[in-house]
């Protein structure tokens, strides 16, 4: 994977805006499914994962600005304060854009280890804002970043193959 990744990257360079927007919408839908109880506590943050994927693979298309706007939508949906998700996702996107070369150098297993602290950081920001405003911390919330990081490899494989498929059908 590590040798083939940069070559794949060249082929996959042309991915259209609609594909990016579509993947974001699907991630938002997955986040807004009626999760409850432990399912809610352990739910991986699909939106954060998709944002991080595009920030590391298309850093000139998807950056901090788009992450911020998606964060505002998430704030409206979760009835949290304006800016709470937006701040967390902006920092996540910054990490993704700055580290995109480094992440792409590694294979998927090592990428997961690189991505995990970024996801943890963005969750920590969200939880810290909540803690500052309401005065209590929910520790179970951090478990979900493990599940998010575990989902990185399958998600990357899936999106790479989808982009590959689109590229080939485009050429024909």
């Amino acid at each position, binding site marked *: 994977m590590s040798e083939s990744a940069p070559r794949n990257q060249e082929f996959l360079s042309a991915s259209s805006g609609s594909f990016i927007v579509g993947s974001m919408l699907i991630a938002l839908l997955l986040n*807004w499914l009626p999760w409850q109880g432990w399912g809610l506590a352990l739910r991986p943050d699909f939106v954060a994962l998709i944002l991080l994927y595009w920030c590391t693979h298309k850093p000139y298309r998807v*950056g*901090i600005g788009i992450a911020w706007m998606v964060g505002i939508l998430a704030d409206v949906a979760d009835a949290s304060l*304006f800016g709470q998700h937006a*701040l967390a996702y902006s920092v996540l996107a910054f990490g993704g854009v*700055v580290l995109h070369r480094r992440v792409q150098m590694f294979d998927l297993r090592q990428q997961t280890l690189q991505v995990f602290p970024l996801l943890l950081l963005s969750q920590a920001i969200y939880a810290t804002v909540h803690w500052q405003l309401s005065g209590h911390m929910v520790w179970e919330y951090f478990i979900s970043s493990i599940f998010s990081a575990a989902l990185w490899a399958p998600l990357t494989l899936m999106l790479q193959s989808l982009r590959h498929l689109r590229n080939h059908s485009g050429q024909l």
Partner: protein
Amino acid sequence: MEHTRSFRFFNRGPSEAARLVFFALLSLLLLFVDARFKYLEYARNILFIPVNALQSLATFPSKLWHEAGEYLITQTRLVQDNEQLRLNSTEQAAQLQQLQVLQAEVGHLRSLLAVQQRAEYPMQLAEIIFVERDIFKRKLFLNKGSSANVLAGQIVIDETGVVGQITRVYPWVSEVTLITDKDHTVPVQVLRNGLRAIAFGSGGAGEITLRYTPVNAEIEVGDVLVTSGLDGTYPPGLPVARVTQVERNPAYPFARIACTPLAGVDKNRQLLILTGLPKLPTRPETEVEKVVRKSPKFPHKTP
């Protein structure tokens, strides 16, 4: 990546760090404005329309599953239910007759004592459309909003007790904070002896705690808590919770009292919103406030 970069060679815009600082400051500003003032509710209402559409799409499969389940109830189950309900209704008919007699008696006594008759509150039925998706909060959304004259602060009940309070109103949707939410409090009193206390949500699914109750307070396991009606937000006499555990440790100034809510806080689909509660007269000002108002030294401090 190289060719992508060459396109952007001359015009790459501000650096990533500058962008991060800009958007982080913008977020912090929005957070501050949203937490302190209520200027952003209009923007929230507008953004809620597309979000609402996506959300209904996300909850559609589970709703379909729910409705299919209701459709496919077996006949034996229906027959059993019917028998049980008939039994219940005969039992309750007897109780109802007693209740009518008692009600008449109570009404007579009240009029004798010239006590103001407790009003029956107007209410409207609303249906739950989404439950909370955030682990930090215990909230749900109802399908009535400001277009149906729902106001923030109104009380939401089901047939057995208090469920929560409306905290935010959109045009067609309103947000309810449940009594189990960590930031929610209810003024209550013990039905058995009238002892007043304050019930705090615990953030857990089915738990409420009574804080600041002295160790020697007369509360036992099994006591029913009803709203006391103090401060006028909640009408008096609505059932809230039942005490399940009392821990009296003399090392602490207060007893640890755990209760479970009587209403099906996490169960029902239909809930009732109490609409027209009578306004209490405003609190008279204290002696200190009177002095401050009359004193010529503080001419601006008029209440």
